[in-house]
């Protein structure tokens, strides 16, 4: 999916190279072109196309990396969806992921929009603030997880110290099932820098004549936001919503780091309250050695994401007409 900023621009697809075609060049040019795209094509076939088809095939098999795949038809899908004894946490992982998505995505977008509006309102220091608010998002998941484990530390953590200032008692954030999702969502909002930059670009794209007209008409700042700015940001908001949901459904690295304990044990948090869909998938693939089932899980996710993407395209088309 292309960002609205890019999509708004008339992309220069004027059949490039067509005018440069001269008699006699053709065949040699074709050869050169094929040579140039060959490395990318090999990568594409080897690490995208083939794995995608293989994942589909393996999803119908009983398999781990060492054995030969054993065809079982739809059994993996059926067991995942209906066999609570075999996959006791499958639905739990879906619940966790949806909860996380529903909380984290809007929170992130609101944080990003507020930051963008504030930065857009100032001149002096705007680059500095933009940089400072951007830094969390370029930080490695492994480091983000490590830092926030320490920040959320029930005894010595900074978060409890800060909320203590306003009289809220200490919380055991990552060990209380009800607090796990909010704690994770807060980290997501902390990392809203990319959405902030995209909102900022959206704001810069609003013609000043429109805002000025609203000011002349006597609109106060809130009215200007409600009636002018926010509607003008609709494509940006929609883009961030869709990409945000798709990313949130796949959240993994962070929860992996946050909920890995001593040794190799990864549990998915207290009472599986942080067991996201992809963490669940990872555990089945690499801890319980059920690659076939993991592939089935990955295809269920794929289909789900495809549905969202298609709906979004339909919606955009409807908007346009």
């Amino acid at each position, binding site marked *: *999916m*292309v*960002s*609205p900023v890019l999509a708004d621009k008339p992309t220069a*697809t*004027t*059949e490039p*190279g067509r005018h*440069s075609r001269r008699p006699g060049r053709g065949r040699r*040019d*074709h050869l*050169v072109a*094929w040579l*140039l795209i060959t490395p*990318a094509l090999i990568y*594409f076939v080897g*690490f995208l*196309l083939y*794995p*995608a088809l*293989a994942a589909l095939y393996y999803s119908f098999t009983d398999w781990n*990396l060492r054995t030969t795949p054993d065809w079982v038809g739809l059994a993996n899908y059926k067991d995942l969806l209906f066999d609570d004894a075999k996959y006791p946490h499958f639905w739990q992982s879906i619940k966790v992921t949806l909860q996380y998505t529903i909380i984290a995505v809007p929170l992130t977008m609101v944080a990003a929009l507020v*930051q963008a509006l504030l*930065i857009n309102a*100032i001149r002096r220091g705007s*680059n500095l*603030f933009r*940089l*400072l608010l*951007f*830094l*969390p998002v*370029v930080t*490695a*998941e492994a*480091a983000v*997880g*490590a*830092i*926030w484990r320490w*920040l959320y*530390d029930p005894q*010595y953590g*900074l978060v409890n*110290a800060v909320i203590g200032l306003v009289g809220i008692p200490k919380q055991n954030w990552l060990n209380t099932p009800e607090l796990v999702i909010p704690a994770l969502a807060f980290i997501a909002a902390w990392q809203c820098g*990319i959405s902030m*930059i995209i909102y900022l670009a959206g704001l810069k794209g609003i013609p000043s004549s429109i805002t000025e007209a609203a000011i002349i008409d006597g609109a106060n700042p809130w009215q200007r936001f409600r009636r002018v700015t926010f509607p003008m940001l609709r494509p940006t908001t929609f883009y961030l919503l869709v*990409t945000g949901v798709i990313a949130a459904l796949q959240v993994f*690295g962070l929860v*992996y*780091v946050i909920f890995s304990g*001593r*040794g190799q044990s990864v549990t998915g948090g207290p009472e599986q309250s942080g067991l996201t869909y992809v963490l669940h*998938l990872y555990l089945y*693939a690499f801890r319980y050695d059920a690659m076939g089932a993991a592939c089935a899980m*990955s295809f269920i*996710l*794929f289909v789900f*994401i495809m549905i969202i*993407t298609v709906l979004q395209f339909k919606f955009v088309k409807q908007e346009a007409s």
Partner: protein
Amino acid sequence: MKSARLIPVYICLVVLALISIVPFLWMLSTSFKHGSDVYTKVPNLLPVDKKTGEFAPTTENYDYVLQIGGLGKAFVNSVWVCLILVPAKLLVDALAAYAFARIPFPGRDKIFAVLLAGMMIPTITLLVPRIFVTQSIGLFDSQWGLIVPNVASVLDIFLLRQFFLSIPSELEEAALIDGAGRMQIFWRVIVPLSVPVLSVVTITSFIFHWNDLVWPLVVLNDPDKYTLPLALQQLTQTESGRAYYIMAGATLAVVPVIAVVMIFQRRIMQGIAFTGLKT
């Protein structure tokens, strides 16, 4: 007064910037504290001695994680992987993008459409079979296993192609008439005109691969080959309860990226605004 009206805006921004930055400052200060000074009733944002209250930073945590924690080796591994992977990927992507943008050949647009369609597949779906492919070409548990399976990116090809399309074709035609070959045109005309987009792609791909945890996690077994995020993740497990070591490790992982972002901030911001690409 216009400036007076902006005071609340600045106050809000300072608060938000603090929320954004304080975790890093706390990471830094913890990493420079003596182990005995870390666990205090009231958190201290400076590395001070618990008893005397004197400013007493130490680098002993860094010595420990670099030597015993294996992060020194991991740092070198990460640098090495990025030094090979990032330029190789840029070259593969730019060459393909140039052909897709500029050289008409039969089936070009169909092939390109297939590539774009491939972008929709979530990486997690590809994860397990990718390991299998990596294993069958003999790169499992090796650093080349981090490089080869990541050596191209459809998104980057798409971005570079978009940019190449915007370069006026007259420049190229002039060179063609002068008898220049395609490769000469690529290096002499296209590359010099595309420095902005090439640098954005380079920087974002460096950040992505420097930070990447998932792929090294599934491909590497040998701790000697661990990259920094993986070694840090390991440290978080083995030293859990010793926040000063973990924060020293986190600092090592975070600082290079922050440095790169600070140096190239304008380019990066423009790049993201333009493409919406996720790092």
